[in-house]
């Protein structure tokens, strides 16, 4: 039977699948983006949804392992784990299923059969930081994180660097909500930030960010000019109808997933490697909706995009690098 299978494998379709975290495929964030990438890949290769390409949703962290395991054993040619929370489970499954090909987003797993996909969120955040620095009227801006982690720190530090680059005098308020899903906390933090005079808030806080939009819209409706900078996807819609979304830092997990799937299909599975996606691959960028961004700011963004791509400027990703960055800035 083995021989037969092998033979059939050649003309058998290439199958891809992913495991979401508890957010699900429509979290308006990286799960959704990854699934869009998979769908695009499926359409390009005429795959059938639900069998040739599909996703499994996890209801709790303990579901990651069985879900990954199931997909690998169902002979999917590459299985994505979306989010750094699956790091350990990916490792485990990779050990148990040495023949399976796995990929993880947002962290690095050093295994021969695991491809690690990471993004340079700090670079994208730097760009929106520039915009914030240019467009703040009060010289005060804010950053709200969900739960503190090195990943979210990349957003924070990139953003801070951008702001300081464009506007060294600007004051930056930072707060972590301790939660990705508490809109009322987002609302209260935004209330504090705006109340203390900030006019632009950048968030990397998932569902907690909803409260930030709510507060901004309320203020906008009462005639105050305040902005939110969205994250992960273009959050222009979230800002409607008052149009409070200044811009968004878009993280193209879809591009990454398509790219890695394509490579794998062509026999170049980047197992054991770290595939980095940054400005260079247009995998992090500012959102297509640009109507609220000033011409000057856009020009500035383009200027620095080039500098970063050319390697002239290194964007800090953690607190230490940021400290050093500030020193270079002073010189």
């Amino acid at each position, binding site marked *: 039977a083995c021989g037969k299978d092998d033979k059939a494998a050649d003309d058998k379709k290439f199958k891809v699948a992913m495991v979401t975290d508890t957010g699900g495929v429509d979290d308006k964030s990286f799960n959704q983006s990854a699934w869009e990438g998979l769908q695009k890949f499926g359409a390009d290769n005429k795959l059938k949804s639900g069998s040739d390409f599909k996703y499994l*949703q996890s209801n709790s962290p303990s579901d990651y392992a069985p879900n990954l395991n199931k997909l690998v054993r169902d002979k999917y040619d590459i299985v994505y784990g979306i989010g750094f929370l699956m790091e350990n489970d990916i490792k485990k499954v990779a050990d148990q299923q040495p023949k399976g090909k796995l990929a993880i987003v947002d962290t690095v797993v050093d295994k021969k059969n695991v491809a690690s996909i990471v993004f340079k969120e700090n670079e994208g955040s730097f760009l929106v930081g520039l915009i914030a620095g240019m467009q703040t009227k009060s010289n005060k801006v804010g950053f709200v994180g969900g739960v503190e982690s090195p990943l979210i720190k990349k957003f924070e530090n990139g953003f801070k660097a951008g702001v300081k680059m464009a506007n060294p005098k600007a004051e930056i308020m930072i707060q*972590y909500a*301790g939660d990705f899903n508490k809109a009322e906390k987002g609302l209260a933090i935004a209330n504090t930030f705006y109340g203390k005079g900030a006019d632009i808030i950048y968030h990397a806080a998932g*569902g907690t960010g*909803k409260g930030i939009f*709510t507060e901004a819209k309320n203020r906008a409706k009462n005639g105050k000019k305040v902005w939110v900078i969205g994250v992960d996807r273009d959050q222009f819609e979230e800002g409607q109808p008052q149009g409070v979304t200044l811009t968004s830092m878009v993280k193209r997990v879809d591009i990454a997933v398509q790219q890695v799937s394509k490579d794998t299909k062509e026999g170049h599975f980047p197992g054991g490697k770290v595939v980095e996606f940054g400005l260079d691959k247009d995998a992090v960028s500012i959102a297509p909706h640009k109507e609220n961004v000033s011409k000057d700011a856009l020009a500035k963004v383009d200027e620095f995009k080039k500098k970063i791509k050319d390697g002239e400027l290194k964007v800090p990703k953690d607190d230490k690098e940021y400290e050093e960055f500030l020193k270079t800035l002073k010189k």
Partner: protein
Amino acid sequence: MDFLQILALIIPAAIVSAAPIILTSLGGVLSERSGVVNIGLEGLMMFGAFIGALFTYYGQEWGLGAASPWMSFVAAIVAGAIFAIPHAIASISLKADQVVSGVALNFLAAGLSVFLTKKIFDAGQTPDIQERINKGDIPFLSKIPLLGDWLFSSAYVTSFVAVALAVIVWFVIYKTPFGLRIRSVGEHPMAAETMGINVIKTRYISVILGGAFAGLGGAIYVATISGNFSASTISGQGFMALAAMIFGKWHPLGAMGAALFFGLAQSLSITGEQIPYLKEIPNAILLVLPYVLTILALTGFVGRADAPKASGKPYEKGKR
């Protein structure tokens, strides 16, 4: 930042986040005052939030514009009331253990609301609603020095609705015949029965009314805070409402006060990170602060609270 500025930040935020909890705890008060324990508040609130998001969305589609959230409130009130019926049937007519039935209600709400969301929108969450309830200055009152800034400037109308409803519920429970009957049924149903009061009917009405309040609480959360519904929109607020009800000693105004206290503690911990000195306190400590404060308040000056005597006990006619 000076002290007054801090208050001006903390108080409005507290009131905003308190409104859904106030309403839901009022639902709890109504239900438990009649003798039916309601652990299902979380579920009722969740279902209300779902219906709130759903009907605001459809309201927008149907061209109701700014009236959409208000229509969604009506829908959520009705839905909450209907959703409370299984709990009423189980715990009143079928003499089920009320805690069990309430827990079942929570599971049912979590399953059903997300299941229906997936069925209707083919997504794990509803679309963002465009028409919200918006903050605004309350005419005249917002001009009062200090208090105007704290309480009546850029405030949600719904917050005042919540406070007004708390007063109304207090009036109904403590000042009207209907309230007297609800309380009698929760304290000594047999006595009520001998006075010609229909225990079963009174309890049904109270539980269903309680569901309506909790449903409204959920819908207001969506309209004023989250802006859409997903599985994680209501995660624990119903239990906080339950705690507020007990904290408030099963009294409508007490429950309101407790909900405001939670809100205040919460916004203090959030704003605290932006206040000099407090800033130095580790984030984790500020995060647990509201809950620690609540426990301290309970221990220090609230102390003992007695539930209505018959709460939790199914009433059987003629049983001793």
